[in-house]
């Protein structure tokens, strides 16, 4: 088995992915998007008094301006991957609308529309065809989509591989000959081959070792700078997200519950779930000696979403109103970019009685520090 040498320098932006001049308005808008899955038979479920419809994405509005890197964070079962697949056209939504450059994307996308949103998947071992060489894979893609003239396919392929830091010898290699990080580079080259407007990366570094993660994160960062790429990054790792993204959307049980620019979210999280999520990140600097976890309990099953606020079953500040009313996303009066779906966000309501506990779980200073 050979391992191919790995280039580190990226060629300058002579760009295979030259973008059209940016029109006004956001690149992508999703409105009231919902995706559900039906599990088993409706009749049997009714006889057993069980739910059989899983609402993976349950009414999501999302806007991505051109050139932005937006992160979608949340735990397993929050619907972040389903939302990404729906945006990329891999999953048909139940309802809602997706607009790209102001134009509504049909449920069945034209080939030209498919091209505009491309995805990079988590596992580079299962997302590449093992029977095709890298060159063969890219050539097929370029022929089918007519991205470049037939006589330019060869040179464009080499240019693409150079862009992701792979040498020309990669053209004739099979995926099994690459390490995990190199496979992810191939997957990124494949996504960029179609000159997409939006790159959706679903946990692109989760399957990789730490030192390799860094090379892929740096590559994504360089590609953004050089190609002006718009990026939607799905990740559960908030350190990765903070490193790469301009804005963060937090998902919980199929809904977006808070959106803010990255630094605002880290400095002034409004939703109790966001605060818990931030406090739960293991840090280099202090120990887990306090006994109170950042967020208590398990997330409820997406088959049985609580009525009212979805987070109330785990929320440290839940009040009767949280059961009666499902809080809508509201915008901060002082910061139009910051929205949160909590009755007590932005000081909108009188602070709940035990807000002291929230403060202590949200701030790292409340934890036992290493002597």
């Amino acid at each position, binding site marked *: 088995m050979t*391992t191919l040498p*790995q280039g*580190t320098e990226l060629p300058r932006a002579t760009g295979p992915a030259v973008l059209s001049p940016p029109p006004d308005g956001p690149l992508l808008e999703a409105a009231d998007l919902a995706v559900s899955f039906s599990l088993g038979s409706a009749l049997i479920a009714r006889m057993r008094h069980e739910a059989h419809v899983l609402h993976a994405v349950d009414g999501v509005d999302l806007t991505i301006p051109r050139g932005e890197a937006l992160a979608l964070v949340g*735990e*397993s079962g929050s619907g972040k991957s389903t939302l990404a697949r729906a945006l990329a056209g891999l999953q048909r939504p139940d309802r809602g609308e997706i607009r790209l450059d102001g134009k509504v994307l049909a449920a069945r996308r034209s080939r030209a529309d498919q091209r505009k949103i491309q995805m990079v998947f988590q596992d580079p071992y299962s997302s590449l065809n093992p029977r095709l060489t890298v060159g063969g894979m890219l050539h097929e893609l370029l022929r089918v989509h007519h991205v470049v003239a037939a006589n330019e396919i060869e040179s464009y392929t080499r240019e693409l591989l150079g862009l992701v830091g792979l040498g020309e010898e990669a053209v004739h290699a099979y995926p099994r000959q690459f*390490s995990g990080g190199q496979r992810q580079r191939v997957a990124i080259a494949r996504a960029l081959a179609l000159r997409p407007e939006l790159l959706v990366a679903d946990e692109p570094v989760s399957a990789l*070792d*730490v*030192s*390799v*993660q*860094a*090379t892929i*994160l*740096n590559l994504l*960062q360089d590609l953004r700078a050089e190609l002006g790429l718009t990026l939607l990054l799905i990740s*559960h790792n*908030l*350190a*990765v997200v*903070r*490193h790469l993204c301009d804005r963060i959307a937090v998902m919980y049980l199929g809904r977006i519950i808070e959106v803010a620019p990255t630094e605002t979210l880290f400095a002034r999280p409004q939703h109790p779930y966001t605060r*818990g*999520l931030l*406090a*739960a*990140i*293991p*840090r*280099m*600097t*202090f*120990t*887990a*000696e*306090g*006994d*109170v*976890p*950042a*967020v*208590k309990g*398990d*997330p409820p099953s997406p088959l049985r979403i609580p009525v009212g606020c979805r987070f109330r079953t785990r929320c440290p500040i839940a009040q009767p109103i949280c059961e009666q009313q499902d809080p809508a996303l509201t915008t901060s009066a002082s910061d139009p970019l910051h929205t949160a779906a909590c009755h007590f966000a932005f000081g909108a309501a009188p602070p709940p009685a035990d807000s002291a506990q929230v403060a202590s779980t949200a701030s*790292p200073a409340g934890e036992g520090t*290493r*002597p």
Partner: protein
Amino acid sequence: MSGGDRVSQPLLQVSDLHVQIASRRGIVRAVDGVSLEVPAGEAVGLVGESGSGKSMTLRAILGVLPAEARVTAGQVLLDGVDLTQLANNQLNQIRGPKIAMIFQEPMSALNPVMRVGSQIAEGPQVHLGMNRRQAAERAIELMRRVGIPDPERRYRSFPHEFSGGMRQRVMIAIALSCEPSLILCDEPTTALDVTIQDQILRLLTRLCRESGTSLVFVTHDLPVVAQVCHQIAVMYAGRIVERGSVQEVLTQPWHPYTLGLVRSAPDVDHPRSSLAAIPGAPPSLVSPPAGCRFHPRCKFAEQDCTVTEPPLRLIDAGHATACLHYERCLDELRTEGADR
């Protein structure tokens, strides 16, 4: 942290452990001369990337290596008894009451067709001579201690009825059931969500602190080690390259590989403009490079690094490195500090 009480015999003493795996490509030296001490009541983190030999070291301690792997040299002393010399039936007397293990994937470690409570009660029945009712009471008590709600009812559940976090709580209850002096953890929270990981890590540290149980904690995640462990040992290509207190090793690494690991992971509290990746890939363990195994990827490498294999040497109280030019790491950190 334990500073002066190093006089007493450590609970676990691994010395010069070698594990080899027969493969088609030759003999893989997965663990190649690892020495490790775990004092009573302390948590030691064993970190490294995939293929560094950290899990093999852990499995060798408990004698649960895969069929094609063998301990070829070295000792594993637990309370003065060499576990590598014991037969399997003798090891079974140790597994449970002396050493327990928690795996990454609880679903594959638990018996899917046995009720959760019975699995927790099994150890006390076999090892502590409890009868069925006593063991069941103990299991329910343990389930309560690890935070499983409604333990009397959940006792009769099967593993598939539990969430990932709850299954890992069951694993912890099983590990604690015979009051072992040492628990080995192999990436116990890697498969869990961050809020659940936080719950499990806090639970594990609290229970071990209360019962004085020692931990060996294998993970690739440095911040997790910082949360749980007192000591840390960094493995690369089958060898320990740096060892010391968690605080010292993570803030003042004395090995370029550790420095690389610390810098390549994004830090959630201190975002940097660019991450410093470690160039290249880990070497083959069939024929590792001569001299220091890290030298082909090391920016501080000199001529002497390619010739002699540097031993792990103690530089400062409790802090050891296997780098011939470890001062370079200090210089680098100092200049970086000045730049900030």
